């Protein structure tokens, strides 16, 4: 499997996790100690933390729409663009009131070791959070 095929498999696994709440496919592609470098101070360390983040957002958001696109890859690194759209449920402290539309536009970089994602970085912009 080349790096673009891996990336496409990852996109399907992310969609399955976010849209259906099934994280089995994603777990197979990530190292148990994966580190996600999110905008400070929100790094996630370990697959369990990443899983908790996704499931937490699924509770807090509705009308989840996301679009991942493969940008480029070589060897053990690949990058995706990510556009998202959600509606806040208003149930989670720190997130906006119910009905607020939240959109995101970001870029992700992934690094693999031994066929699994061990590190990821993301930066981007969001609207609707403040």
């Amino acid at each position, binding site marked *: 499997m080349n790096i673009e095929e891996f990336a496409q498999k990852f996109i399907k696994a992310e969609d399955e996790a976010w849209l259906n709440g099934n994280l089995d496919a994603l777990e197979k592609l990530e190292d148990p100690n994966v580190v996600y470098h999110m*905008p400070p101070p929100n790094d996630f360390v370990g697959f369990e933390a990443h899983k908790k983040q996704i499931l937490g957002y699924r509770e807090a958001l509705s009308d989840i729409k996301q679009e991942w696109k493969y*940008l*480029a*890859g*070589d*060897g*053990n*690194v*690949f*990058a995706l*663009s990510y556009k998202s759209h959600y509606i806040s449920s208003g149930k989670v402290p720190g997130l906006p009131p119910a009905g607020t539309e939240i959109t995101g*536009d*970001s*870029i992700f*970089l992934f*690094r693999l070791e031994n066929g699994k994602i061990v*590190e990821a*970085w*993301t*930066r*981007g*912009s969001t609207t609707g959070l403040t």
Partner: protein
Amino acid sequence: MNIEEFAQKFIKAEEEAWRKGNFDPLEALEDPNVVYHISPFPDVVGWEAHKQFIQGTVQMVSGLWQEFKYLAGDGNLFALTYKSSGRLTSEMPGMPVPKGKEYSTDYLCLFQVKGGKVAEAWMNGSITVVD
């Protein structure tokens, strides 16, 4: 030269261009038809357009501070973080910061190299108005 060495050379060339207005090292590392996808701005297509983008930004920002850091790379692909801050001295098309305001940016930048030169780049991140 491996991809990390190329990236470090690229960082020095960017700093030389932004801080001293010397574009020669950067021109040597970029394809004449390089494409920069810089959110939220329109695509910057071609070396000359990239040079003008840098020159234009330098003229519109006072107290410009920048920091490039290598993150990772493999084969012909490398990534950097880019942080900057400054004060906008005139209206900048596409920039979500009013004239006169101080701002900071925090970006992730990806570069694809072809034939030993940067051929395409993607940059996305946040722009925050500080005051």
